[in-house]
């Protein structure tokens, strides 16, 4: 299925969860926040929230800033 991932068109296996996506991307879940279609996904739901075709996914973390 297709996703918009951090603004870029991406593809992922049907039925993937948020946890699956982070694993594929080799991203440590502890340090990020995930938003899907403008709704925040709580960390406790990463492994049961199944992604849908066309979802717009944002994965954010902390960077240097003032």
């Amino acid at each position, binding site marked *: 299925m297709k996703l918009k991932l951090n603004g870029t068109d991406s593809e992922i296996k049907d039925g993937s969860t948020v946890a699956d996506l982070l694993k594929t991307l*080799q991203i440590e879940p502890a340090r*990020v*926040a995930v938003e899907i279609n403008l709704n925040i996904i709580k960390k406790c739901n990463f492994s049961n929230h199944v992604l849908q075709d066309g979802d717009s996914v944002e994965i*954010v973390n*902390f960077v*240097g*800033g003032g």
Partner: protein
Amino acid sequence: MLANDKLIIRGIEFKSRLWVGTGKYKDFEETAKAIEASGADVVTVAVRRTNIFDKRSENLLDYIDPKRYKILPNTAGCYTMEDALRYARLARETGISDLIKLEVIGDEKTLFPDTCATLKATEILAKEGFIVLPYINDDPVMALRLVDAGASAVMPLAAPIGSGLGIRNPYNLKIILEQAKVPIVVDAGVGTASDVAVAMELGCDAVLLNTAIAGAKEPVAMAEAMKHAVIAGRLAYKAGRIPRKLYATASSPIEGML
């Protein structure tokens, strides 16, 4: 004199009155060294998209340990209340910090805050349980409004962000300090150590700066200078300075002169 002089905001005790940003450094190594030298225990960070393409890219938190430093996420770059709320909520969802340095920018050139949007966002985030530290102009009336809206501290600018102009309006800061019953953290516009000392001598509770260290020729040395400036300024404030007088008063006695 400073042994029991603790800065406490909503039950959180701060070890240093110098708060530092993590932007504009050459690399993470320099960031870590400068922050170490500054003695700060609060570091600000920004919320941005994770680099999903470069799996080897390093993470700021590999260098700034959240167990050692209090992480203060900001909403920098947000120009609307909605965006600021979105960034703040995402920041909290990382599970690393409930603190938020609320910035809603109103103008690209000056980076002055959008006062109305900042006030509304403060009210909403405070109700959601955030420890809201809003960035504002050196505006005494606005400071009180923000406290009423639930701000845990207010952070008036000294001068525009990154300008290095220093304390442009010490008198307004004094009024804010007198009236607002929450900690006051001077945020933005500091250029060098003496600016920090002036802010602390006025009675400000802390100073938050970034560019003044990161943009210095020797950031690590400037970080150390800032550390001393905060302590010197705070001590001078507590010690109580002499009044300013127009004419001289001799320090040596007349008695005993030949």
